[in-house]
């Protein structure tokens, strides 16, 4: 027994080392630049793919392959991210930086697939002088035998740890890094180049992420970016063990997690639900447990710069700038455009484009939940796709097994999703800073890996079918009827979200977001309105999920509700402006229309070549190079990069453009009247003080 415990522990150490390397990188950049860079998962994937390509496809020797993937490519990505991106966000809040990293997490894997092709990459090689991981076993014949992948992990982790220890104990780089976190501006006033310190830490932590990616790759049957997200959760759990600040505790925590996972794998009976559920779910459970019992997670870790008072106040909301006649005008205009669009869709579009637009409208219902939870409620939630899936599965189970009417089943799905959201929100809502985002990320990935495959949840491997609604004599089976139904539902729910945002709940949430101490000093419970918004958001997502399933005829998790899709949705809505209902609607339609437009665009060169076979030379090779299959990847890359605008325009692109055009129109009016600036446009110029 004791021997077995030891044996499993030895097997767990290597994977624990990978968790630890990744976690140390996360803590390092979080400490030095305030960025909790979730994109490290994508960077780890990138290095693993580069190593696979040169080592396996091009058969490079180990050393140059390892140098390229880990020492050149990985830090280079870090340099690019720091120089071109995070450098300009140094004074932004940690939430803005987290959103930037979410955008990167969406975009980077797609860029990698675009460069290296989307073909499967089977049996990733180990970072060792062998072709296959089990070509080298040591010590042979012992019960503690390790393969090449595990030995490489132990060896390179030892090297990395020694290097880090030397770097932090010698010289002042460690001290300088800590000072940069407190206030980059103060540090610069002291004559230290904050941007160089930040650059160094980005290179270092990106190198660790790349190393972790190459080391863990041999564990997977083939390289898939989704597996690296799961690695991320274990690393986050290790970071929380170290309270996001203590590097040594984080490292030990990572190794501990690896050992715990191996012990569970060894001792649990292999065919029980515990083995299939608990083992992959362990990092999520540990993370959740830690967040529940760690008091430090409840107080905000938001890094605020003592000199942030020099920043100008945030722009006033566009709505407060425009005179009431203009508000009425824009409302009339918006409704007209919406009605015209609907008429156009119903009578002009062919069946294909009709289904594209309907998909967008249906998705917009799900995206409304992001407006409610994140925009109005102020909680960054990465689990809205999981709530939508819960709604879809409930709808499917009820219509399949109990013959319930679809619309009734959809309402039941909304209620089940809201109930799950309520249970989940109890621990999450109390968390501060970036912790709610981490906790919902953990839940979403646990749902994806542990719960969604269970047959009592999703119906098993083949998706359950869901019919289209039939209400009395009205049959919504046809696409036009279904579009009308979806638009009706979307309109009703949009109005509901606006009522909540403008009602007392919305005002209380505004107050809590602007100043929690002041809100509770006038008697507002700082927890309750956020909880209400989170639960209502989960309910809306669940209802939307049921609608998606009904539209597609089945509750298909892999096609409609994955964590990755949820990530893209969140990034898209935040980019458009997560406080407004228009953002959800435009994002939903854009999400389906843009890839189709790109598809048409990328098809054009191929068609051109077939109709004009005489084209030759450079033109031909360029046109030949473009593939229609790129469309979805390119669309996702654009969506991901959209999130990078958040730091500059936290109010969203739509709102920013609205403000801009209102100012322009007011300027024109002033000019036409030949008067000085109106009070509204003057107010913009003379704002002083008070802003935080």
């Amino acid at each position, binding site marked *: 027994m004791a021997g077995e415990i030891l044996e499993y522990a030895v097997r767990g150490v290597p994977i624990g080392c990978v968790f630890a390397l990744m976690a140390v990188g996360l803590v390092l950049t979080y400490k030095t630049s305030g960025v909790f860079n979730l994109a490290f998962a994508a960077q780890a994937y990138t290095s693993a793919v580069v190593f696979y390509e040169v080592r396996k496809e091009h058969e490079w020797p180990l050393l140059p392959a390892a140098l390229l993937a880990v020492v050149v490519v990985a830090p280079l990505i870090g340099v690019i991210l720091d120089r071109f991106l995070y450098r300009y966000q140094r004074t932004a809040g940690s939430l803005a930086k987290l959103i930037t990293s979410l955008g990167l997490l969406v975009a980077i894997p797609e860029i990698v697939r675009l460069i290296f092709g989307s073909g499967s990459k089977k049996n990733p090689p180990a970072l060792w002088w062998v072709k296959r991981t089990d070509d080298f076993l040591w010590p042979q014949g012992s019960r503690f035998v390790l393969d090449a992948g595990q030995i490489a992990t132990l060896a390179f982790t030892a090297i990395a740890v020694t290097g880090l220890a030397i770097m932090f104990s010698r010289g002042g780089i460690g001290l300088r890094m800590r000072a940069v976190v407190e206030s980059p501006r103060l540090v610069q006033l002291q004559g230290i180049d904050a941007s160089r310190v930040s650059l160094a830490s980005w290179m270092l932590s990106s190198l660790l992420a790349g190393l972790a990616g190459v080391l863990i790759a041999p564990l997977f049957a083939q390289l898939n970016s989704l597996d690296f997200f799961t690695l991320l959760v274990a690393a986050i759990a290790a970071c929380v063990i170290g309270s996001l600040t203590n590097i040594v505790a984080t490292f030990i925590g990572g190794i501990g997690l690896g050992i715990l996972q191996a012990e569970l794998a060894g001792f649990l009976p292999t065919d029980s639900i515990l083995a299939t559920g608990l083992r992959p779910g362990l990092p999520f459970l540990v993370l959740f447990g830690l967040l529940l019992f760690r008091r430090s997670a409840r107080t905000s870790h938001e890094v605020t710069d003592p000199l942030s008072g020099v920043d100008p106040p945030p722009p006033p909301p566009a709505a407060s700038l425009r005179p009431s006649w203009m508000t009425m005008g824009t409302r009339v205009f918006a409704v007209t455009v919406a009605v015209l669009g609907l008429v156009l869709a119903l009578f002009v579009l062919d069946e294909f484009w009709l289904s594209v637009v309907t998909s967008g409208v249906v998705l917009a219902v799900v995206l409304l939940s992001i407006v409610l939870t994140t925009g109005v409620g102020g909680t960054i939630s990465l689990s809205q796709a999981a709530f939508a899936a819960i709604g879809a599965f409930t709808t499917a189970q009820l219509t399949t097994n109990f013959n319930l009417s679809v619309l009734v089943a959809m309402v039941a799905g909304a209620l089940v999703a809201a109930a799950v959201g309520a249970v989940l929100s109890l621990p999450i809502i109390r968390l501060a800073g970036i912790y709610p985002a981490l906790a919902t990320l953990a839940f979403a990935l646990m749902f994806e890996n542990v719960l969604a495959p269970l047959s009592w949840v999703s119906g098993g491997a083949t998706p359950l079918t869901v019919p289209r609604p039939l209400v009395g004599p009205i049959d919504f089976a046809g696409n036009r009827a279904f579009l009308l139904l979806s638009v009706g539902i979307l309109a009703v729910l949009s109005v509901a979200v606006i009522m909540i945002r403008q009602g007392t709940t919305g005002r209380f949430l505004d107050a809590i977001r602007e100043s929690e101490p002041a809100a509770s000093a006038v008697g507002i419970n700082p927890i309750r309105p956020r909880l209400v918004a989170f639960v209502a958001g989960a309910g809306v997502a669940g209802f939307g999920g049921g609608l998606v399933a009904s539209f597609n005829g089945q509750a298909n998790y892999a096609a409609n509700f994955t964590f990755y899709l949820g990530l893209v949705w969140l990034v898209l809505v935040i980019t458009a402006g997560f406080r407004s209902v228009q953002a959800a609607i435009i994002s939903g339609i854009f999400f389906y229309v843009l890839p189709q437009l790109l598809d048409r665009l990328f098809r054009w060169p191929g068609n051109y070549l077939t109709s004009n076979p005489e084209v030759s030379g450079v033109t031909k090779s360029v046109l030949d190079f473009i593939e229609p299959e790129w469309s979805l990847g390119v669309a996702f890359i654009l969506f991901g990069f959209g999130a990078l605008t958040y730091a500059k325009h936290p109010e969203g692109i739509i709102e920013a453009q609205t403000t801009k055009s209102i100012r322009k129109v007011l300027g024109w009016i002033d000019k036409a009247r030949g008067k000085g600036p109106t009070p509204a446009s003057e107010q913009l110029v003379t704002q002083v003080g008070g*802003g935080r």
Partner: protein
Amino acid sequence: MTAGNAMLGNGQIGSVLVANHIDKRFEGIAALSDVSVHLEPGELVALIGPNGAGKTTLFNCLSGVLRPNSGQILLKGRDLSGLAAHERARLGLARTFQRMELFGSLTVREHLFVAHRAQRRGASLWRDLTGRSRPTPQEREQCDAVLELVGLGDHADRPAHSLTLGTGRVVELARALVCDPELLFLDEPSSGLDHRETEHMGTVLEQVRAERGTTILLCEHDVAFVERLASRTYVLDCGKLIAEGPTAEALASPQVRTAYLGAGAA
């Protein structure tokens, strides 16, 4: 006059607030030790002391932002221990902040509506969805009355982030007053204000007292401001009460002179 705690600890039956033997430690540092204060209806009492004396810590313990390690706090005879800040606020404790805490995107009038609503009706999703969450005529009337009282009528529809520091502090005061508090804590209302703004704040406070008779505990740095407004004064130094009594007497006591001159800030 020495801090005889046996005497200070005894609030009378009608006291608005009685705080007995408050202790607060931060990781071994005693921020407050054995501090007792009491406030009688309609009084304006000042709390002064050098930087780091524990004034804001005492405010935070009384208003529920911090939990004291020991001690008892009674509001109109009701024990407040275990109640969160927002629950104490609903029982009639209102406060302002040393570092201004406004709801930046809301207008001045909306600040008062939010505070008024939080005190009395609270939020209900159902009322929001059925369109019954607009301010009632009664709410408008009461908020306008407070705006009038503190002289904010001209700024009522401006967003808070466009206000000067001086006006912002008056908005904080108005937001606290609209809660119709039993007791109002003012945390350094004059800090950061210039002479003219401080003068205005003093006038506003005098008006508030004349018209509403609100019981106020005023934490202040500006001794002239305290002499003008407060009938009684507590002096804190290094977490202990070193003097208490009618303002002129308390300020003249030798302990207070030592504390202030020793700190180099007479």
